[in-house]
Structure formats: C-alpha cells, structure tokens
C-alpha cells in the first residue's frame, strides 16, 4: 500500500511538472500571438488607416479648391453675361458646353431609379448567385435606355455620366468614372418624365428582366432632381480639333 501510494504520489508529481510546463508554453504562445497580432496586423492597419485619412483630407481640400475655382468661374461668366453681344453669346455657348461635359450640377424633372440585388438566393430554380446580383452590364443597359429616351443628364450613385464615362466591372466591383460604387444603385436622370418612364418600363426591357428575377426595382418620376457634376473632367491629350487644312 505504501509503495502504491508512493508510486501514485510520484505520478502526481510528474503530472504536475508536465502540466506546469504545458501551461507555461501555452502562456508563451498566447502572449506571442497577442503581441504578433498587435505588431503585424495592428501596425499595418494603423498605417493604412493613417494613409487613408490623409488621402481623404487631401481629397476634401482639392474638392474645396475645385468648388472655389468653379465659383470664381461662374462669377466671371455672370459678369460677362451681363454684357451684350458676342461675349454674351459665347457665355451661353460655354454654359451649354459645360452642361454637355457634365461640369455643372444640373437640376430638373426626370426619374429616379433605385435598384438593389435580388431577394432570391442561389439554389433557386436558376443557376448560381451571379444571376441575382446587379452587374455592370445591367447598369450599362439602363444608362443606354435612358440616353436613348432623351435623358439630358444622368448620374449613378452620385457619379455623373458623361461622354467618356465607362461603367466597368473588375473583381466584382463596379466602377463608374473609375470610382468604385456598390449597390443599392440609384440613377438620377433628368429628361422628359413620361419618355424616360416608358422607355425603362418597356415590355421585355431591362427592368422587366430584372423584375422577373425579383430584383428590387423602384422607379419614380420626380421634379427637382439634382445631378451632380463630374468630379474629374476628362483631359484631351491626344485628340486635337481638325483644322481646315487637314481636310482633303
């Protein structure tokens, strides 16, 4: 009995030592992992956040500068417009060109289209999840439909569509004017309300196709829709106006 007890005690001691070591190693590991999490990920995200805020602050500053310069320009134009004759005509022309280029915020009646992914999920009767999300080509089709119906200004989620606007998709992100936007999508389109409504609601048209798949589509005619200006106007580096002597 005594030997058994001694053996047992011995066993207990070794078990205790082993557990002490194991506990210590667990302590090391937990400590290290926490330190690692703090240093690597923490530093990285910290740096990224700092850079992001910096970039955003810079962007805000530049936006302010753009606003200031545009205000100045508007003032000059206003002054010029109050004069008569050629200058006035030119100012008018300039204004129209600006609207066409999307450099001015514009306001008017038209339609607002709100669009969100389908409430249906993959595994329903049609293929994969891809079928139930809004793609770049859906937006392209809607924009085309709106232009064709005589829309004068269109924006998607605040991004003005102009002649050089591209709606693209890379890595499941939709980009308009090189700015990433995500659903739900809102089209603001200024133009003849009736025309725009009927163009979008045309039978077997783009909205019909989306409605069948239970996409959340909300189309409303509205007055006083504001379409913002384009953030970065296009540059013309390669294209030059054709001179008379160029033509053969």
């Amino acid at each position, binding site marked *: 009995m005594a030997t058994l007890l001694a053996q047992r005690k011995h066993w207990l001691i070794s078990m*205790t030592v082993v*557990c002490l*070591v194991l*506990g210590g190693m*667990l302590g*090391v590991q937990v*400590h290290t992992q926490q330190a690692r999490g703090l240093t690597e990920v923490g530093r990285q995200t910290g740096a990224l956040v700092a850079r992001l805020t910096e970039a955003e602050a810079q962007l805000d500053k530049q936006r302010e500068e753009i606003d200031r310069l545009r205000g100045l320009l508007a003032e000059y134009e206003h002054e010029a417009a109050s004069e008569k004759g050629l200058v006035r005509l030119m100012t008018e022309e300039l204004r129209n060109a600006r609207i066409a280029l999307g450099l001015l915020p514009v306001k008017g009646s038209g339609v607002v289209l709100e669009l969100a992914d389908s409430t249906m999920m993959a595994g329903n009767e049609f293929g994969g999840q891809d079928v139930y999300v809004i793609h770049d080509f859906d937006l392209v089709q809607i924009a085309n439909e709106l232009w064709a119906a005589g829309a004068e200004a269109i924006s998607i989620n605040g991004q003005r569509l102009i002649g050089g606007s591209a709606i693209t998709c890379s890595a499941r992100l939709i980009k308009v004017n090189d700015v990433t936007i995500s659903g739900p999508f809102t089209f603001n389109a200024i133009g003849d309300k009736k025309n725009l409504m009927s163009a979008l609601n045309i039978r077997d048209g783009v909205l019909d196709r989306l409605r069948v798949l239970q996409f959340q589509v909300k189309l409303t005619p509205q007055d006083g829709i504001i379409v913002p200006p384009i953030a970065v106007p296009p540059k013309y580096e390669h294209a030059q106006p054709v001179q008379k002597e160029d033509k053969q």
Partner: protein
Amino acid sequence: MIALPLCALIIGFLAVYMFLPAVPPRWADYVAIAILAGLDALVGALRNWLERRFDEAIFVSGFFANMILAALLAYFGDKLGVDLYLAVVVALGIRIFNNLGRTRALFVTARVEAKRARTATAPQ
C-alpha cells in the same frame, strides 16, 4: 488529486503570461507545435491510464521528447522548404482526436460494466 496538475497548468500559464516577454513571432509556430505534442502526450497518458498500462517514465520522457522532436521537425521542414509543420499538425491532431475518442469509449464501457455488475449482484 486532479486538482494539483490543473492548478499547475493555470499557474504555469499565468506566470509565463504575466512575467515573461513574448518570444519572437517566428518561433510562435514551433511553440504551437510543441504545445500540440504536449497535449498529445497528455491525452495519450489519460488513455493509457484508463487502459491500466500507464507508465510514468514513458509518459514524462515522451512528453518532453515529443515536444522537442515535433518542434525540430517543423523547424527542419522550414529549412528544407517543405511544410512538415502541416504534417506534424495533421498527425498530432489525428492522434489527439483518436485518443480522446478511445478515452471516451473506455469511460463509457467502464460505466456500463459497473452498472451491469451492480444489477447482477442486486438481490432478485
């Protein structure tokens, strides 16, 4: 009886966690492997004890030797550019799981047998 090792586990954890600095991050993987090996030895010991073939010398030597060997294996794997780390994790993981399952089975069998013995000796 079980309280002493349990206390030692907690004390060891707290002592190192509170008073010792963290090891360099590149060691973390090897420490993790060593812990896994230690855990394996512990679970193995539990199983052996239930099977009444627990040997203290084997347990203690196995505990330390396996820890060191597992970490060394992972280290050499890294040096050779082979993910031996994963092999060790998988092997130890499977062993721990098997031993735990076997331990549970032994417990249940012991219970059932005890119950049967009790009903058999009970007066009719």
